């Protein structure tokens, strides 16, 4: 392709992305983030076209033109789907703002786009780091820097599986994705050389191949693999700990539900994720440290007295559910799988040494105030009572004028306890009724979250009015 044809192709691709992003920016969104991002992509495309029209691409190497077109097609165009997937229709809209707030409280300066994806997975991707380097390689670097300044320091697209859109309790898993950034920060603070030296020494000791060259190769490959396994395990386990700090026991229930879709609970996955059994065991450790669950007896640590019968039966049922995890805690089949190979044995030996550290790191870096056992004990039973009565668990009402606001973690915690107790028995009786009740639970939870958000904003407006400023509802 001659250069002018390549530049024309680049111009056309920029126009196509502009058209799509511009059209999608008109959708309804639960927050401003997706629209802001759509308009940012539009600006990138328009700027690129302006530079072409001004002749900036006449002088550049043809390879840069081609690489920019490939960058648009392979990297920027797929980002347009994040905008579409983040529309109010495609998300559990009421949950989006509170999740954004959790993320922003965890990572200073970061913004989040919560979006659906068809792939069955919860995931997070940072968009600025993908966009910035190629854009700064283009002509008029200072102008591109000015355009990029409009993006937050970190912009994450966090994705949930679309199949689960109407399963609000499972979206607790999005806190794990927010935790990935905390985990990356932990890894960045580690002394990489020291870790590689330790892994090298450990692996060299365990590999007994006689041929020196072959042995050196095996050790080298082993260190590379062990390092990757170690990092992947630390990221997942630390992110789980963040999730437990944010959502308490709900994090365990969500983790277990997702793990049950896995082919194996004991093996390291193909993408190097640690065995589910290890993650569940570790989650129990964290929840034990936070005093939500007693890991010896595998029971909820405490439950208030004098509750209505419907709510009173919840603790024994949940304790029974937790008791079923005993096999995970006691047998630890995952350890046998890990120890089948030298790199995984060494990687996980290193991970084990770091577990107390990562739990401390998660505690220090999760949003404050953290969710505590006292909140769970005080709020969740009362919210459960509301769910059993077909009411959204949005607040505790002592009387009309005396109401108590509740935390998002308590709303989702009550949803999980309801799901694991009431709904489990419904499924045994009538699967159709089970589906209907799951949908009802989802609706009530989202309504509760919406009402909490409305109330918070309304109270904030009243406070500002009292202080003489303009309220948000004016």
């Amino acid at each position, binding site marked *: 392709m001659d250069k002018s044809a390549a530049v024309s192709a680049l111009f056309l691709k920029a126009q196509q992305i502009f058209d799509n992003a511009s059209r999608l920016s008109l959708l309804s969104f639960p927050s401003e983030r997706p629209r802001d991002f759509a308009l940012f992509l539009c600006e990138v495309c328009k700027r690129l076209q302006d530079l072409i029209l001004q002749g900036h691409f006449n002088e550049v190497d043809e390879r840069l033109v081609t690489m920019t077109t490939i960058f648009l097609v392979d990297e920027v165009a797929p980002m347009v789907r994040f905008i579409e997937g983040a529309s109010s229709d495609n998300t559990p809209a009421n949950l989006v703002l509170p999740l954004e707030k959790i993320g922003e409280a965890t990572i200073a300066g970061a913004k989040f786009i919560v979006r659906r994806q068809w792939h069955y997975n919860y995931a997070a991707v940072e968009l600025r780091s993908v966009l910035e380097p190629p854009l700064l390689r283009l002509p008029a670097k200072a102008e591109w820097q000015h355009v990029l300044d409009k993006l937050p320091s970190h912009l994450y697209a966090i994705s949930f599986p679309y199949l689960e859109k109407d399963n609000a309790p499972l979206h607790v898993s999005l806190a794990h994705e927010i935790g990935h950034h905390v985990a990356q920060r932990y890894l960045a603070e580690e002394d990489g050389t020291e870790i590689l030296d330790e892994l090298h020494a450990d692996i060299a000791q365990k590999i007994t191949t006689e041929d020196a060259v072959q042995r050196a190769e095996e050790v080298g490959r082993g260190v590379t693999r062990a390092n990757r396994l170690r990092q992947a395990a630390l990221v997942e386990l630390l992110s789980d700990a963040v999730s437990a700090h944010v959502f308490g026991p709900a994090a365990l229930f969500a983790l277990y539900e997702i793990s049950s879709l896995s082919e194996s609970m004991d093996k390291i996955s193909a993408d190097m994720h640690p065995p589910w059994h290890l993650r569940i065991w570790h989650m129990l450790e964290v929840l034990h440290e936070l005093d939500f669950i007693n890991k010896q007896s595998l029971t909820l640590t405490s439950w208030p007295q004098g509750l209505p019968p419907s709510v009173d039966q919840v603790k024994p049922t949940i304790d029974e559910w937790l008791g079923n995890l005993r096999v995970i805690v006691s047998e630890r089949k995952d350890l046998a799988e890990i120890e089948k190979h030298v790199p995984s044995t060494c990687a996980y030996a290193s991970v084990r040494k770091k577990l107390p550290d990562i739990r401390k790191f998660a505690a220090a870096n999760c949003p404050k105030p953290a969710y505590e056992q006292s909140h769970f004990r005080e709020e969740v039973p009362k919210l459960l009572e509301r769910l059993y009565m077909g009411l*959204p668990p949005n607040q505790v009402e002592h009387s009309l004028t005396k109401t108590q606001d509740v935390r998002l973690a308590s709303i989702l915690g009550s949803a999980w306890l309801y799901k694991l107790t009431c709904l489990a028995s419904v499924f045994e009786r009538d699967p159709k009724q089970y589906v209907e009740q799951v949908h009802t639970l989802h609706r009530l939870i989202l309504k509760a979250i919406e009402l909490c958000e409305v109330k918070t904003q309304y109270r904030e407006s009243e406070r500002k009015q009292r202080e003489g400023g303009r309220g948000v509802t004016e």
Partner: protein
Amino acid sequence: MALLSKAHIYRWLNKELAKRLVITPILDPKEQIHEGSVDVRLGTTFILTQKTEFPQMDPTEKEEKLKKGIQKYQFRVSKRLHEKFILHPQQLVLGATLEYLAFPPGLGGYVLSRSSWGRLGLVIATATFVNPGFKGCLTLELLNLGEVPLVLYPGIRVAQLVLHSVVGKPGTHKSRYRFPTEPEFSRIYEDNELTFWGEQPSAP
């Protein structure tokens, strides 16, 4: 049925949870609770109609066909707080109350337009009766009978609930709309008898 006074409304709102009239949240009790009524607010989700693929609404058609037809005819739109929703003259839109309601068996009610909005041409409900025992957000049939477009916002007080106590022993209410939290599409197709009243298939 007897109309509830303000004092009686407060009494029902303050009963123990199992027997309470639940209207949650009441953001501003002083502004919202009056003699005989409680103001309720507009919710965030709306159902609009699109006519291009739907030839007519015949409620006597077979359930599956009618259900699909209604889904083609109506679609949902969500608005955030402080976002405009513009209702044009003669436009019918389904909305819902922001508040979630739970009526005890001993109370029923009517949902009515607030007169200040009515004078601007806004009608908020045609099917106005609320059954004792109802739980959920009430679907509002918003219709602009005025001559200029009306700008609505989620959270504004558009309707009022007039409450009545039930005389005699209350029965159990069973609704076809279970715990709605948004406006609900019509389920007219669940009226079993409708097919009888519709056109009969001609004899072979």
